[in-house]
């Protein structure tokens, strides 16, 4: 692995940083754009990749992608296939109008976009209720609407991710960068205790809270984490708050895995859970 490369908008991505896999077409992630550069020869135009955001260049050789990891505190912009936690704002005949990030246009969620939903069985969601959904489309052109779904259109199922209404529990806000890491950490099938993306906090919490019946978590790329500990009985509230505080502190203070474990121990003791 070469040294980390940080680019600013307008900088070109040097060709030696691109994945060398030539069998697949190169895919561009966020923060990059392709510009054609007129060359001295009249017929041949060369192409350059330039950054549009400041960030760390990352490549994935397997999937042949290159993208820019920008500042983790940025605002979330809906991208197809992302998992988000959306809040119902109001409903109309065909759609629920949902809030994905505050002070932006509402995203649409079909009234029937739920597992096994028919006109009679569809969930009656009210204002302020939450759903775990996937971004289905972001539309083409200016001012296009974002559409969400709680069902995999191919299978008609709610997917293993557990899409659908989120009942009870609590939502905590984290940075969008942290949310992306949490999604990878919570969805990975690695053994407990492993550090994924520099995160040990989830597996540590899982270990420590196992005796209380564990917890359920849903992470939205829009920087929201839903936590539910309803199995924990009387300690449910405290356990939920402890999880939220651990995640937010890890995010705010950029803790490394060792400090994350210390944090978990400290907060659980403070909340009288351990």
């Amino acid at each position, binding site marked *: 692995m070469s040294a980390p490369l940080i680019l600013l908008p307008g900088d070109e991505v040097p060709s030696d940083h691109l994945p060398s896999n030539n069998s697949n077409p190169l895919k561009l992630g966020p923060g990059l754009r392709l510009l054609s550069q007129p060359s001295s020869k009249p017929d041949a135009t060369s192409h350059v990749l330039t950054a549009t955001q400041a960030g760390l260049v990352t490549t994935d050789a397997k999937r042949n992608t290159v993208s820019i990891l920008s500042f983790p505190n940025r605002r979330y912009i809906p991208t197809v296939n992302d998992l988000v936690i959306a809040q119902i704002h109001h409903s109309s005949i065909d759609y629920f109008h949902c809030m994905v990030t*505050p*002070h932006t246009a509402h995203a649409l969620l079909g009234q029937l976009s739920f597992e096994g939903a028919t006109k009679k069985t569809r969930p009656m969601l*009210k204002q302020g209720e939450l759903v775990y959904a996937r971004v289905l489309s972001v539309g083409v052109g200016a001012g296009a609407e974002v559409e969400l779904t709680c069902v995999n259109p191919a299978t008609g199922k709610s997917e293993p991710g557990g899409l659908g209404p989120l009942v*009870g529990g*609590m939502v905590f806000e984290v940075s969008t960068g942290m949310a992306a890491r949490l999604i990878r950490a919570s969805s990975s099938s690695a053994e407990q205790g492993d550090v994924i993306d520099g995160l040990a906090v989830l597996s540590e919490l899982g270990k420590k809270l196992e005796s209380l019946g564990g917890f359920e978590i849903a992470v939205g790329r829009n920087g929201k984490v839903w936590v539910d500990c309803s199995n924990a009985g009387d300690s449910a509230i*405290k356990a939920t*708050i402890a999880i939220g505080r651990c995640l937010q502190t890890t995010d705010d203070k950029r803790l490394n895995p060792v400090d994350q474990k210390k944090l978990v121990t400290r907060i659980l003791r403070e909340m009288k859970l351990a």
Partner: protein
Amino acid sequence: MRPATAKWPKMVQKKTFDRPRRDSSPRCAIRKMSKEAPLSVAEREFILEALRENVRLDGRGADQFRSLNLSFGDEYGHVKLQLGKTSIVVRISSEVTKPRDDRPFDGLFNINLELSAMGSPAWENGRSNELEAYVTHVLDSVIRRSNALDTESLCILKGVSCWSIRADVHILDYDGNLTDAACIAIMTGLQHFRRPDAVVRDGQVIVYGVEERVPVALNITHKPLSITFNAFNEGHNIIVDATRKEEQSSEGELVIGINNGGDVCFLSKFSGAPVDAMEVVTRSNVALEKVKEINAQVERVMQADLAKRAKKGMAEESRAENDR
């Protein structure tokens, strides 16, 4: 007694003391005021449920403030306040102007607060909102109208010239309890500020530069602060220093402006559900305790800063002498 009248009190009671409904209830005047995105049902219910168990989201007790951090800028009267994630900068400035015709012996003092999109994306630049008017009103009452800054001492020459003191409040980050935070910051700024010295000689006003004469501290008559209480669960839980999410799920608030001596200079039950009258009395005691605590901290931090400045000033003076 006729059944109709017998029913009356019951109905009234039911209407007023009903549990907060799930949909956007009009009780939350604070929430409506700040135009923040509405809280989800899950969040509101959870906050209320946790408070029933006397637990807050950040692990604080009901009568506990978030950690308060005060620091000073290069100039006198430049205060940076951090209360949890709420962050404020206050700048105090002075200039010589003409006093008002009806009050020739009084100087001027104004508090300026403008909410910008920096503090919260919910606030639009260049447009005032209700929260701005409300907070300005409370600050004005607690600090200016209680005469915390003795405006008579700002008079230089009767009817001709006086000092005009201006406090500019910049909200950098908004996470609840704007009023108390701004109040602490302004009071700290006023105590820290030094205005240039001015004298009247032969009917002429002479203002000395900061280098010529040691600048003068303002005359602070007392140190009132506002303490805001938020009520939840039909008044069963009352907390201080609410965060933004707590404010959004609160059913009403009570603001007490009080000084170290226990004199109440402002009392407001501006919005939301009714609060038991006895609560106002007991909360005043809590407010007094908090004000004493905070004022002591302000004093400590300020003295440390002033001592540091004095040391630096002395070092510079001796350097200047050495140069000579």
